[in-house]
């Protein structure tokens, strides 16, 4: 990756289409790539070994001090559960792809999208409780009220939650969490902790 000290403003013509692929912060028009935000120009080379003929570098415009998080299909969303019903779970998305949103937006996880197996026998209230912090993936823009989210992956689900007694729950399996204060076991759809997170925890202890 090569970062440059070249600055551009929206509308600046960067290069013709056949020399590079348009990345974030750029758009294509009339066989040319133009900048669509103000920032520094960055060229990323595509890994030569990774198959196909597309060896053009990716040109993108990066803004260091301020980047805009926009909910889009396929991105990871951090959300807080607000309401659990028998058919779906309502939540408030407060961050997208590790970037906080200025204003939270509404999301919804339907019963069928909670687990990847035994979808029909899922009971929402044994998977999520209000105030749980959940990592989910946006699968559709949904209707006018909410984005459609899914936790049907093993690394998606509840990241952190509090028990009835108020203790911070500790995950003990993929569907159970234990309260350290009362030793009661509560059911949850637990997210498989990523490797980098466990490394971080082991460093702390």
């Amino acid at each position: 990756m090569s970062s440059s000290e070249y600055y551009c403003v929206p509308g600046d013509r960067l290069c013709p289409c056949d020399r590079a692929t348009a990345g974030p912060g750029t758009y294509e028009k009339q066989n040319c790539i133009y900048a669509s935000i103000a920032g520094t120009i960055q060229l990323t080379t595509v890994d030569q070994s990774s198959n196909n003929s597309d060896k053009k570098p990716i040109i993108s415009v990066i803004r260091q001090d301020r980047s805009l998080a926009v909910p889009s299909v396929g991105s990871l969303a951090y959300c807080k559960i607000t309401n659990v019903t028998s058919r779906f779970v309502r939540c408030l998305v407060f961050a997208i792809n590790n970037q906080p949103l200025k204003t939270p937006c509404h999301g919804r996880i339907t019963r069928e999208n909670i687990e990847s197996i035994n979808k029909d026998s899922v009971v929402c209230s044994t998977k999520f409780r209000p105030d749980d912090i959940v990592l989910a993936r946006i699968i559709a823009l949904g209707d006018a009220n909410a984005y459609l989210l899914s936790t049907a992956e093993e690394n998606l689900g509840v990241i952190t939650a509090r028990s009835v007694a108020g203790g911070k729950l500790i995950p003990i399996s993929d569907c159970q969490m234990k309260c350290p204060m009362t030793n009661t076991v509560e059911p949850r759809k637990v997210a498989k902790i990523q490797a980098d997170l466990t490394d971080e925890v082991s460093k702390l202890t």
Partner: protein
Amino acid sequence: MEQPDECFDPLQFAVDLNLSDIKNVNLDENVFISKGLINQANGSSSIESKSLITQANGSSFIELSATKVTCAIYGPRETSSTSDESYSKCLLETSIKFSPFARQHRIDPLSVQYDNDEDCEESELCSRLEEALLPCILLHKYPKSQIDIIIDVIEDDGQHLLSAIILSATVALIDACIELYDTVVAKSLKTNDSLFTLCYMPNLAQVSCIFFDGEATPNYLDELTDEAVKQCQLLHKAICKVVISDLKSAAALNRKIV
């Protein structure tokens, strides 16, 4: 890694151009554009970059002659509208307010009617602003959301108001990091009793809209258009310079903090 041969140095658009130069060319007219203010608090211990309006995503202040305008951008945020159009595209919500002391005659804040009066001047300006900006925003990048543009007119000299409003909105949109096809610049020309405003996208060489109040022959309109396009290009250079110098100072600040 080398950059492509045809890659332009964007700085070539902004070389050797001081705002004072514009002052000379622009027929004794002051142009002052500001995107962000940098506050240096408590000596050297804490340095922070601050926008003009801190709560907003992007903000700007524009001074054209005696006309002074501030603009704040909020969003893109979740829209409350449920129309089909808002589902695939972003909505633009504009609001323009005059300060009580903006004009020669003071507006009594108590006597201003805030109900939806369709033919009041503010809503007229709002619709013109939307007309000028809609062609330049990549609306499809922000589905199900809306962008709020809030403009305060601090002072109005009767000539540059519309162009100042459009310029401030453009600079604030750039500041808010919202994707644009091009930077829209606008120039108002006043002759006798007619007012001509042209909104121009310099890199695409497209006119986004023209407003004209008064009477003129087609030839005269052509002349006005040519003159406005020339002045728009100068304003565009000024905007580029402000935006890039702001980016540079932000980058320098980041380096200091790290």
